[in-house]
């Protein structure tokens, strides 16, 4: 019976257990109050039914202590829940520094997944066991949402910006993912599988396909093809070496960190933020580059380092 109707989906990531404990606590509180209130209703309804010859109820007063009790006890319980859930949420929000980044682009009605090494897949996501993975996600059209029940993660995937989730799988196997933000006709078909593999299998899988370019190599090609090189290789535009993660001074005096979102915006909406000391001559590439290509260009920019540094997260 419980095989067919399990209580929770499998726990296959490091955060699942902690979340489930909170979930069980909430269930216990709920069951307690459901039982309390329902039994009270039934008791009152039966006990105080009207009986003949007993028309007038005895006087009952509004009792202040009672009013206070049922205001204060729920308030305290809410406080406990909040503290618990807030601490969990903060802990789960930040990806560990050493996370491997994988890129996800949603569109009606499929998922395209791009590994830094160049391998890409559709509606499937291969990840290594026991390593923190950060998914950087965007959409080409409407809003989608990436949901892996067994990992207890879910996040909207929006057009025009990056969102991210991270997880560390604790179990080798095959797990579902779904689109959980309503996106039109074939929303219910926008789903796939996460394959969790041992790190060695994963390495084999990554290199197993027909040799392809890494994302950075693909980005390097685009860099030439789309003529970025004519400015950024000549001094008309700022050079990209060590750009990623650095502080960029803008012509309005502000300083911003060159993260994924900044790079994306610089490519698609160059006039939004102008680098200090340069003319706003860069044309917009919106409509010419799709989200995959932008991700490749970003990977290329990231790869331009004078020396190895840890990622800026």
């Amino acid at each position: 019976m419980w095989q067919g109707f399990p209580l929770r989906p499998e726990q296959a990531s490091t955060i699942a257990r902690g979340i489930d404990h909170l979930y069980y606590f909430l269930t216990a509180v709920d069951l307690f109050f459901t039982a309390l209130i329902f039994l009270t209703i039934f008791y009152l309804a039966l006990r105080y039914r009207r009986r003949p010859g007993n028309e007038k109820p005895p006087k009952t007063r509004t009792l202040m202590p009672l009013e206070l009790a049922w205001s204060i006890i729920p308030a305290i319980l809410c406080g406990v829940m909040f503290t618990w859930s807030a601490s969990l949420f903060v802990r789960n929000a930040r990806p560990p520094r050493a996370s491997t980044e994988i890129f996800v682009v949603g569109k009606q009605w499929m998922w395209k997944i791009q590994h830094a090494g160049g391998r890409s897949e559709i509606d499937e996501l291969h990840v290594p066991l026991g390593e923190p993975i950060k998914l950087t996600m965007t959409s080409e059209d409407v809003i989608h949402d990436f949901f892996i029940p067994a990992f207890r993660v879910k996040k909207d995937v929006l057009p025009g910006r990056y969102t991210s989730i991270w997880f560390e799988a604790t179990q080798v196997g095959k797990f579902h993912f779904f689109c959980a933000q309503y996106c039109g006709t074939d929303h219910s078909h926008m789903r796939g599988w996460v394959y969790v593999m041992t790190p060695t299998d994963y390495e084999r899988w990554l290199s197993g396909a027909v040799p392809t370019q890494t994302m950075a190599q693909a980005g390097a090609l685009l860099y030439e093809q789309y003529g970025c090189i004519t400015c950024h290789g000549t001094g008309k535009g700022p050079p990209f070496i060590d750009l990623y993660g650095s502080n960029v001074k803008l012509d309005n005096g502000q300083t911003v960190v060159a993260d994924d979102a900044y790079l994306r915006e610089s490519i698609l909406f160059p006039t939004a933020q102008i680098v200090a000391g340069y003319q706003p001559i860069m044309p917009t590439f919106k409509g010419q580059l799709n989200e995959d290509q932008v991700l490749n260009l970003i990977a290329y920019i990231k790869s331009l380092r004078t020396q190895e540094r840890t990622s800026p997260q």
Partner: protein
Amino acid sequence: MAEAHAPTAHAQHAPQGFIRKYIFSLDHKVIGKQYYFLALFSVFVGLLLSILMRWHLVWPDAHIPLLDKLSPVGAPGGLMTPEYYLSLMTMHGTIMIFFVLTTAPQSGFGNYFLPIQIGAEDMAFPRLNMLSFWVTLAALLTLLSSFFVSDGPPLAGWTAYPPLSAVGSVSGPGEGLGQDLWVISIALFCVGALLGALNFIATTLELRTRGMKLMRLPLTCWAWFITAIVGLLSFAVLFAAGVLLLLDRVGGTSFFVPAGLIVSDKILSNHSGGSPLLYQHLFWFFGHPEVYIAILPGMGITSHILSCFSRKPIFGYRAMTYSLMAIGFLSFTVWGHHMFVSGMSPYTAFAFSVMTMAIGVPSAIKTFNWLGTLWGGRLRLTTAMLFSIGFVSLFVSGGLSGLFLAQPPVDVNLHATYFVVGHFHLVMGVAAIFAMFGGTFYWFPKMFGRMMNETLGKIHFWLTFVGVYAIFMPMHYLGVEGNVRRYSTFIDDFMQPLLPVHKFMSIWAFIVGGAQLIFIFNLFWSMFKGEKAGINPWESTSLEWTVPSPPPHDNFAGKIPVVYHGPYEYGVPGAEKDYIMQDSPEVVAESH
């Protein structure tokens, strides 16, 4: 303000002729009934749609009789296309939220009984009142007309998130004219709701009769009053969001559409720089208060009925009014709990999480006060009373499941799954419907001068009560398992094991749907054949029970009552009977 003085004038002569009397009537009682029947019609359309949906979900290969006649494109050969399912879902949600829940408890019962309960001859602005009804009707007809447009009814869901809802037919069927009609309908509805809200506020503040101090208002009036304030503030925002969405669709603006979208392999070059999240903030700034607009009048009605049929004063009248105000106020501070997974910062999420739990406190106070009202009473378990007790139970069940959704780390798992569907159906949908049934059984004698049949009423109650739990409780389980909502099919092997649960729910949906026919029969049969009702069949205390059933055109036949008592003086020691009417001059040592 000319209208405010009018009542005395129109007290003398009621309009003659069918059209002026029943169609373009200025009488709040006729308008109240018009709203009631509009909602009644809508709830049956909505129910029918949900039954078709439940059928398609579990028997996707079984032909639905007659459906291909209704929509040869949407259901060729009686089998629904995915688009058609999603359209029905969108229409079901929209009709239920706007034209049922926002309409019957507030505009229907409120229009009819607010003026009588405060001792007024009509609403403050009768003409505005008529206008708001007709605008609401126009909104409903606009929405329903989308069933007949060529690329099908809208399918963006009742929340209509852009870009899906904003970029037009490129994003799929139903996103063309159908979606335009949806937006126009909602904007019209907002206008009607805003006018209605103004009228309710003015009426409550200005037209109370002598002696009707604020703290002598029945809780129904308090609830209608606070709902009107909440409605005024929130529908204004939805109206703005609707207009901006319409401009994005037809005016080439980009409030909600970012640049460079590639939809169906076409680059949308006519948009730039909009924010889809802006819409979500606007929508839910309305959307959360909206669920309270749906439920607050129900709370008022339930309090009123529980006190009457327990033959006891409502437990904690003051606490009840303050908690209504607290809920109304807090409802504007929690909208972000619908957006925990939209990418907001964890700290923003906390703020919304705290406020969401805070709103649970006044809700708990109300619940316990209802129980306190039953405690020690002499309960008359009429059908109205059963539905009110049912309301409390549904509100508790749905409210408790809301605790899960208020915790961001847990909500991350449950958001957009059937858990949410189960939660909001219980706490808002069915609870409000129970309040409507309770109100109908309680006030029918006043509105139509006859009693409804209690035996049929009780059969209807028990079938519905058991049925809605059987439909909506299992949904929580499905959601916990990860069953995503708004899916038109469950072909996936992940969903297959859950299919028996879905079948169980569908069968109960058919039973509950069928049980509503008992209610319809009871309603119309009693209207003509029911036992004649006296002035005060339930021995209630509020002012509507001092006038004939149905009340005369100007409510009090020129004799405006004076109020001496609070609304819930039941079982007062030393009184002649076990209750004291609000307008009774009787002085009892203990009453005030």
